[in-house]
């Protein structure tokens, strides 16, 4: 054969997949099953699971469909990180095993478990509905299909990356806020909301924003960046979340919600003292009544344990405040100028 490449065989190894098992019909609690199989270099986690299902244990249950990283069905936690099984190479996981040669496979978190590696996606769909994750077109009904919107490359670029999202829910699984509050909007839905809100063809920007600033909305995010780090499509989700927040302050004003007020109080402290005045932060964010009602018991405990933050007059400005203020002013101006040019 002309110019044929040399035949070579790939390296093979015995590898254990430690798979999370739970069938609510028969199991009182979850457990792990170990499957040790010979795996060739170049094989994905999904293909290994398929092999196990076909040759070792047909009852192992997981979702998979396109097997090409575009349908988003096979999201699961592999060695503790949420990702797609179909695009994850077994060989790449070997260096991440806690126990050598054992790859741990678990279902996504923060969604109700159905069986083994399968979780319920319905709550996510419900949130997409709650936050109007769709375009309500500006085109009059009678004109639909007759003409196209003109969209500049610049505007297209604003939502281009966000439309890569395949709703695999890896970000949902990794979200630290969702672990505490199941009602939290969730990163995927924030991303989709952002994508709709920067689209000039959409007519319900304000309605969506109104929902996003409510409780469990955009202000609940604590910037841990886990969603962005895990995104299988490398979408800068945090940029979307910041985008919604900036938009919210701009459109609805700073006194609009506790989230915005919290951000403003933060800014005020940093500008004045270079550090936080924690004692009054809850009052400035949520008001006196809310603070007394919700935080008084904790405050009393803190007093008893002598863990109370110092009262405002005792919070001394940080060292080098003069220089810091200059830098702060410069930064603020820079951000404002950028926002202005964005709008143009």
């Amino acid at each position: 054969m002309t110019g044929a490449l040399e035949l070579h065989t790939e390296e093979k190894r015995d590898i254990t997949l430690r798979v999370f098992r739970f069938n609510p019909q028969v199991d009182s609690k979850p457990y792990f099953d170990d499957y040790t199989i010979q795996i060739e270099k170049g094989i994905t986690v999904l293909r290994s699971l398929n092999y196990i299902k076909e040759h070792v244990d047909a009852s192992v249950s997981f979702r998979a469909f396109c097997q090409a990283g575009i349908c988003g069905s096979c999201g699961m936690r592999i060695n503790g990180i949420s990702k797609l099984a179909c695009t994850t190479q077994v060989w790449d996981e070997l260096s991440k095993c806690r126990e050598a040669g054992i790859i741990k496979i678990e279902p996504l978190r923060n969604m109700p478990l159905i069986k083994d590696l399968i979780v319920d996606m319905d709550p996510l769909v419900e949130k997409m509905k709650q936050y109007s994750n769709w375009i309500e077109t500006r085109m009059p009904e009678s004109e639909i299909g007759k003409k196209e919107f003109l969209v500049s490359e610049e505007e297209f670029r604003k939502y281009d990356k966000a439309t890569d999202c395949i709703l695999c829910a890896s970000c949902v699984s990794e979200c630290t806020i969702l672990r505490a509050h199941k009602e939290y909007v969730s990163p995927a839905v924030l991303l989709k909301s952002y994508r709709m809100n920067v689209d000039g063809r959409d007519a319900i920007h304000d309605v969506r924003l109104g929902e996003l600033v409510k409780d469990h909305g955009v202000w609940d995010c604590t910037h841990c960046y886990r969603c962005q780090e895990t995104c299988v499509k490398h979408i800068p989700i945090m940029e979307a979340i910041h985008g919604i927040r900036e938009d919210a302050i701009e459109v609805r004003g700073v006194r609009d919600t506790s989230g915005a007020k919290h951000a403003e109080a933060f800014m005020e402290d940093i500008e004045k003292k270079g550090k936080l005045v924690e004692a009054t932060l809850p009052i400035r964010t949520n008001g006196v009544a809310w603070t007394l009602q919700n935080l008084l018991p904790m405050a009393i405990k803190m007093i008893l344990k002598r863990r109370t933050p110092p009262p405002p007059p005792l919070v001394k400005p940080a060292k080098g405040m003069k220089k810091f203020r200059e830098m702060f002013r410069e930064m603020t101006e820079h951000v404002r100028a950028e926002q202005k040019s964005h709008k143009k």
Partner: protein
Amino acid sequence: MKPFDIVIVGGGGAGLYAAMEAMKTNPALNIAVLSKVYPNRSHTSAAQGGANAALANTAKDDTVELHIFDTIKGSDYLADQDAVEILCSEAPKIIRELDNIGTPWSRLEDNTIAQRPFGGAGRPRCCYCADKTGHTILQTLYEQCLKKGVFFFNEYFALQLSVNGSRMKGLIALNIKTGKVEAFPARTVVFATGGYAKMYWNRSSNAAGNTGDGQAIAYRAGIPLKDMEFVQFHPTGLRKSGLLVTEGARGEGGYLVNAAGERFMSRYAPEKMELGPRDLVSRSIETEILQGRGFDSPAGKYVHLDLTHLGADLIMSRLPQIREMSMYFEGVDPIEEPIPVRPTAHYSMGGIDTDNFGRTVMDGVYAAGECACVSVHGANRLGGNSLLDILVFGRLAGRTAAEEARRFEPAQIGAEELKDTEAALRSYMRPSGHFERYGTLREELGQTLGMNVGIYREASKIRKGIEDLAALSERFRHIRVFDTSDIFNTNLLQVLELKNMLDLAETVASGALAREESRGSHTRTDFPVRDDEKWHKHTLATLDRNGVRLGEKPVSMGRYELQERTY
């Protein structure tokens, strides 16, 4: 249970568009969409390249007429010309409609929807969103369906039509989450379940679930399937997995190169080169490989798709998914190295026989998209026409069903029928007499189809294939579902899908044996030329007591006379 006016089976592009349009046509109707996966997982998402429409944004002299002609010529004159006319004249409207409701089309400098060249098209008319066109269309349609409050039954597996004589009473489906068999009494049922090319398994670019469920259900209910022998092999599947590298890669200027370093398409399509139609390019690659000019590897023989001369910028901006896939599944970065590719079963031209409005021969049963065969693709589909097909005919089928639903009297599905169906499923789990493994049968099915009913076909091989299929069907009677649980029994689903593929494979092979000519994707080495006198017609496969019965149906002609097809 209160009967539905419309039950749509399948939540891909065709099914979702049908749902939207049906709601628009008559908001009072009670409509359900039933899908074995969440709709946003559907295989529409895998369509990378784009959708054709003569918007004339990129090439100002493009017209609907030219699009019609390209499609008919591409089909090797087997497409029905009146159907093609609907497809192409609705195209600009439907692309604009998608733009209006949020599909993020890539843009030209004048801010209009961008279009690029595609195989077999005389003008650059393929509208796209980078290389994620299908994905973004599917998202848009799903979003709009959520907005309109379409009633979804997600993760339901359709089992059979409930039919009394010639009267369709509704659908019976398995609730995957509970394992219960449920009745969906309905005045109308629209099948939009996608293609059947996954029967070639590892030699297929399709999702694991593209097992022709709708076609198999219709076939078993006595509805004829049309042109089943026409399976399109996409020229550029990744060597190891069969996964697809979009035609957009060649549209953007990629080269096909053999082991001798030649751009071999100059031998087969000197003018269009890499942008020849799919059937021609696939055969060219297969010929290069068969004649010893391919590369060799443990995963099979292949040629190179070379993008390195396009430069990193273009690859990253226009073909980012392709780059990612090449790296994930082949370990090759196309910026630096050529991608190893070979033809892969990609698309089913055949499907449920429908008229131009989605109607089948059975009252109240409709079909659209890859699941149906109108036929607009004839013997070979052009790139960029499949997304278009699901949109245009999904919408039409939805509208027709909505207009006609109230003509059919509702009926109930008896409890007895449900019980029997459930018992049949349970019987797969009985140990006695059930020992065959799903994986083995499926592997052999893919192998025999690839070897005997693949790109190059001949009578003796196809007969061997038919024998193999009969043996596999016999062995299927002894198949065992080893997982006995009710909740999310994916082992049971695999077996049911295999049954659908086996039934349909028989129609593919029978059609291939009967059609003694070469046309479009169907290449008989023993009948190497197109035979218009004997075979300018559709084949119809109907199930009767002895298996497949083949019939025929004339091709509806129009303005365009039969011509030899050269590129």
